[in-house]
């Protein structure tokens, strides 16, 4: 209805409606900032942050008033919302820039060979050295085992959903795969704690609960499984049906068609999904904290004794009271982010080479 209401200044006789000149925005911004600075600093109720915030609010109001006077209310609303939407982006970029900057500037302090080649064994509160070798080993082993468990399970599950699944069972599986993506990582950790560490592992360990890297890998598997199923399923659905039909027409059995035709066609997409889920799992802290136990020493055996991981290392160093631990935490965080981002970016680049598109 508002759309159809005749607006005088929009449909006024001439072809040219009055437009706000381009310099009006800049002028409003300057006036708003000056006014806000005078107001805030004059009354002494805040610092430059408040000046900027209040200036932005005044700018929006002033700009709306100016546009309202010159171009009419509809155009004024349009311009204000456009400004709001643009400022939302600036607001989102700010924390990202801050995280990136502090991560790099604090992370390079300990970015040396010693950090990557030593563990925290026998490192006291007064020792400046010590490193994350044990944590890197732990992360790689846990994520690797989790990937070994999850990739076959996830890909086969997705094959079932796409190629075989009919009726209520596959609907239920699909629904709960989606629901499972939302399970908090700490719940996955508690599950493996209750199931593996407290009930199953005592059977192999003289009745004592055994915290281990393998338990952490199990917890990560619970988190990775739904994402792998989901992404693989999406990719398999993109494989054109004529490819399958061609194989069937040549008398190829269905299982061979799937393994030889469908999977290879969708492979780049499947690998992308797997890499993304590995990247996410590598950054998980909570499950590792609960079931791997954490340790300062190097432990290559994921099945016995406590293990650490990079994210757990960041957590424990960040909450440590030693004066040297923040530097270690930042460097470990930088390493972790580098690992995760390299995986993510590689996955995205691989996705670009994927010829199956929607």
């Amino acid at each position, binding site marked *: 209805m508002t759309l159809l209401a005749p607006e005088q200044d929009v449909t006024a006789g001439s072809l040219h409606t009055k437009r706000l000149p381009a310099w009006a925005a800049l002028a409003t911004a300057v006036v708003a900032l000056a006014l806000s600075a005078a107001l805030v600093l004059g009354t002494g109720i805040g610092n430059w942050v408040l000046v900027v915030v209040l200036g932005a609010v005044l700018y929006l109001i002033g700009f709306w008033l100016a546009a309202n006077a010159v171009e009419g209310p509809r155009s004024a609303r349009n311009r204000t919302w456009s400004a709001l939407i643009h400022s939302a982006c600036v607001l989102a970029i700010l924390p990202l820039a801050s995280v990136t900057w502090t991560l790099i500037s604090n992370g390079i302090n300990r970015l040396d060979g010693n950090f990557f080649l030593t563990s925290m064994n026998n490192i006291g509160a007064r020792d400046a050295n010590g490193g994350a070798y044990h944590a890197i080993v732990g992360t790689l082993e846990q994520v690797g085992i989790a990937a070994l468990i999850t990739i076959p399970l996830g890909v086969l599950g997705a*094959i079932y959903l796409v190629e075989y699944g009919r009726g209520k069972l596959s609907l239920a599986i699909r629904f709960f795969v989606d629901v499972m993506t939302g399970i908090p990582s700490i719940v996955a950790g508690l599950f493996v704690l209750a199931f593996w560490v407290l009930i199953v592992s005592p059977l192999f360990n003289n009745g004592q609960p055994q915290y281990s890297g393998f338990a952490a890998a199990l917890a990560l598997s619970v988190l990775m499984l739904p994402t792998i199923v989901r992404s693989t399923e999406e990719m398999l659905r993109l494989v054109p049906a004529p490819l399958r039909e061609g194989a069937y027409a040549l008398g190829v059995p269905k299982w061979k068609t799937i393994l030889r035709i469908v999977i290879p066609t969708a492979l780049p997409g499947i690998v992308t999904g797997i890499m993304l889920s590995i990247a996410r799992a590598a950054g998980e802290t909570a499950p590792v904290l609960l079931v791997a136990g954490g340790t300062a020493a190097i432990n290559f055996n994921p099945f016995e004794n406590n293990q650490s991981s990079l994210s757990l290392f960041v957590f424990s160093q960040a909450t440590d009271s030693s004066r040297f631990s923040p530097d270690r935490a930042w460097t470990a965080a930088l390493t972790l982010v580098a690992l995760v981002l390299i995986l993510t970016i590689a996955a995205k680049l691989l996705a670009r080479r994927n010829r199956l598109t929607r």
Partner: protein
Amino acid sequence: MGDTPPRSVDASAGGPGAHSTRAAGAAASSDGPTDNNGRGGGSSLPRAKAFGAEPAFRGLTQASGIMVLVIIVAIAVFLISEAIPALRANQENFFTFNEWHAQSSDPRFGIAAIVFGTVLSAVIALVVAVPIALGIALFLSHYAHRRIATWLGFVIDLLAAVPSVVFGLWGRSVFIEPVRDFSVWLNHYFSWIPLFGGNGPFGNSILLGSLVLAIMVLPIVTSLSREVFMQTPKQNEEAALALGATKWEMVRTAVLPYGRPGVIAAVMLGLGRALGETIALAMTLGSSFIITANVIQNGGVTIASNIANGFGEADDIGRGALIASGLVLFTITLVVNMIARVIIYRRREFTDVAA
């Protein structure tokens, strides 16, 4: 929503429906030759074997699929079985008591305070994050130049990939400074509002935790809403513009109503993530078991942060108690996620019918 025309654009981007018909056709054509019931020429073809590669492969994939259901059920079963002994030993009401003294002698614990903290921090995080996320989603889908949109979308995806422990570290050692200054300022001028009262110390507060949480749920809500906004039928947008709508009026009358179910689902998924977030909150909150509306004083605790912080010194009963609280978290997030998924599925069915 009733006036939405058929969505040819979405037919290929939609869910299972559009494709499963094709897959079903393919399946039927493959099963055809193997069954012998009166199909022409069927008798000359090999009979379906009961123990061959095909049934074996089928069974293998089916078992993998069923694993998902098994895991969900197993999570509930094992959490309950470990929680029961601790709940039996508990001296107080688990649901209404608001302190956490879970040790073998005289265990008294309850989830009132931690559930309150969980919900409060998640709600504040969403109140901050959702408007910004929707703004960015609209910017990416309708306002930005295509190249900028691709680039910024990529950055937002990377933001989603940053591990939560990094946000926790950043919140704990960097973001706390501006938040503390802001809290002091709020307390100075607005202490008459209960939210901003108190005498300090400020900093490790619900406010800090919620803001860090907001940054973390932002990418999820953004990318999901951007996707639904992009699916708005071009005809709807062009019709609005042809009627003389300004860009914002087009967005309000064509894009937002169309995307509403998707946005609701995105917010619910963000809520699920915010409720379950552990490490970032364990590193930023000040941990106090007081139910208060004050958001700027040191304190605040959530189910997940309580588990992460309390696990180290927990004995058998303590572990059971934490597992019991984890069960509550599991139930809450399960319900939230199921609601979100049902909304998405309904919408998907609707769009498939329309297509």
